[in-house]
């Protein structure tokens, strides 16, 4: 994938195992899109406040708020989504008549599988359709989506509902949704991972499941926190020579007692990189998707500065 190719879609999902940096990638992609003059709606599905944190902003709600020039952010709230759906699509005017909606909703959502999922994906794709039809303030919807365990049921919710519900408006109204999700000009699902064993295994399994169970176009696999390759093969022989007793004694003599610690730290860096490289090879050979690499950032903290650095790295990978 090239940058324009990815950013010309109307809806980008970012999923992956917990803790790999989904929110950072979604936020960085939003920055890239904003830099190219697009108006972005950034949706946080797990509503943990990770998205506004990437921009050093306080939590956002269901109503979008600008967190960065050109980037509107909102947090998914399935109950609010249901209210909106009832009001807009079903023309049920007064929700008050429903009685204790929150409790009923909680119950039905737990009892009827797929309800929360459909309300989430329904709201997202509704915003996508609004943007395609020029009725929205945004050009692209970027989703900090559910983690690996949940994304398949979320993306497949529309199809699942159509299997479960034989008649009724819900069935009709999920059909456009399925079509929009499946359109390669509209949607791309991107999987974020780190070059470690479990995230890579989960990524491989997730890509296989997405291909088998859901009709959805896949974008790229983004590999986050890639450690730098310290040495070429020839340089490594020199490094090993420097670690031998004779050389390390000389270095200690010239650079002080810490010399051995410095050599050991480099040794750790080399092994960590090497273990991870094997996982990357497996990933590359298995998923048959473009891989984008974002380097490990040796920085003190997170926030807008890091989001910008990640956006720069991602932009370079995408040729932007």
């Amino acid at each position, binding site marked *: 994938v090239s940058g324009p190719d990815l950013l010309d879609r109307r809806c980008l999902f970012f999923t992956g195992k917990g803790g790999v940096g989904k929110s950072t990638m979604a936020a960085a992609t939003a920055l890239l899109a904003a830099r190219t003059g697009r108006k972005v709606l950034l949706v946080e599905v797990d509503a943990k406040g990770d998205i506004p944190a990437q921009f050093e902003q306080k939590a956002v709600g269901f109503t979008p708020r600008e967190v960065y020039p050109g980037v509107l952010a909102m947090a998914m709230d399935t109950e609010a989504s249901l209210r909106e759906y009832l009001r807009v699509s079903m023309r049920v005017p007064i929700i008050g008549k429903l009685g204790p909606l929150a409790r009923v909703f909680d119950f039905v959502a737990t009892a009827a599988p797929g309800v929360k999922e459909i309300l989430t994906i329904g709201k997202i794709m509704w915003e996508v359709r609004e943007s395609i039809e020029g009725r929205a303030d945004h050009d692209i919807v970027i989703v900090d989506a559910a983690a690996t365990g949940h994304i398949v049921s979320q993306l497949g919710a529309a199809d*699942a509902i159509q299997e479960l519900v034989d008649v009724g408006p*819900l069935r009709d109204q999920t059909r456009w949704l399925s079509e929009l999700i499946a359109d390669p000009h509209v949607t791309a699902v991107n999987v974020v991972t780190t070059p470690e064993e479990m995230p890579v295994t989960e990524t491989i399994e997730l890509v296989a499941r997405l291909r088998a169970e859901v009709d959805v176009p896949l974008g790229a696999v983004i590999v986050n926190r890639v450690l730098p390759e310290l040495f070429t093969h020839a340089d490594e022989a020199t490094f090993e020579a420097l670690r031998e007793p004779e050389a390390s004694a000389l270095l200690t003599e010239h650079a002080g007692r810490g010399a051995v*610690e410095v050599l050991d730290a480099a040794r750790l860096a080399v092994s960590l990189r090497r273990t991870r490289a094997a996982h990357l090879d497996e990933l590359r050979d298995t998923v048959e998707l473009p891989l984008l690499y974002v380097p490990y950032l040796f920085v003190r903290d997170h926030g807008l500065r890091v989001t910008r650095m990640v956006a720069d790295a991602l932009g370079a990978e995408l040729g932007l």
Partner: protein
Amino acid sequence: VSPQHDSGRPATLEQLFATKEIVVCCGSGGVGKTSVAAAAALGAATRLGGKTLVLTIDPARRLATALGLDGIGNEAHRVPEEVLKTAGLEPRGELWAAMLDTKQSWDDLVRRHARDTATANRILENRLYTSLTARFVQSHDYIAMERLFEIHASGEYDLIVVDTPPTRNAVDFLDAPARMSEFFGGRLVRWLTMPYRVGGKRSMRVINFASRPFYQVADRVLGSKFLQDIAEFFLNFQGMYEGFVERAQAVETLMHDRRTTFAVVTTLEAAPLYEAENFCAVLRERGYHLGAMVLNKTLPDTLLDPDGAAAAAKFCEASGPLAEAAATLSNPILADTARTARVLHTIGESYANFSVVAMREAELRAELARVPDVVVRVPTFENDISDVASLVAISNVLYGDA
């Protein structure tokens, strides 16, 4: 055995686990919960003796293979003694391992609680039941707790170490039993199934919902067939409510029991640590026993040494002269001074890079508040935790032998 604090509180994991029957390992995704749980169980089997079980949710494949968990369902398997001996251990006790199969556990539960086989089969075939148990994450949380209760009640193990399912929020799984009893025992179930119960016992005839706004809207949104499916599901489940509610309460009681302790696992990164601290606070608030905190995958303290920083700076600034000096050594590889200088520079720079991360970790560690009595730091290991030898390495650190 290391000395206890004056208060008589445990100072090591060994002391902590010696009086416990259940250890629940929790923390956010990617922190290495599964490996820590397995290593803790391995260490307990080795040191404390008796039968220790690690109940794991979703281990990495190579780790599962190492523990002999390949392709097995819900059954617990003993990790062969030879495997442990090969890794250089002389275990005093037995190490057992089991994986959680959500679907199978649910089916077992239904068979156990249903009033007869016919009802059980009706439930097992209900399509709502199928998707509820197979596809939806919440059911995972509950069944993990339920399985734990079951295994503990069997009295077969001296210690059970549990790896918790990856939840969006680390406390979700604690709420699962309560949520489950609310779900099955609440008035809403009766409300929802009421239209179908009017015409006598378990009649399935469709009656007129129109008088009630809830049914009216639900019918418009979901379609009446769907609502019927839900009602049917609950009607079949009816005979099981009591069993479920009772069970959920028993699970809750067990979690609060003094024989149960929680170990919070985290890395020293801002987000997981924030979750971990939150989790510690919630555990305390709700009266659970917070036993230990494991800081996993930490960088070595040598990265914080001023001597190291000074040497690294020298490697960068004086790479030329250092390379010249190294060229006088006997190793012919070091004759290429340009290359040696470049390598020295890279080494120095790499140290500086990693020490930034190590400093960030140290800072976060210093800010840790509300931590439990036992805090253990586990270093980053160079290789994946994929065999018994690497578990031994972690368990040595956990139990303070490293």
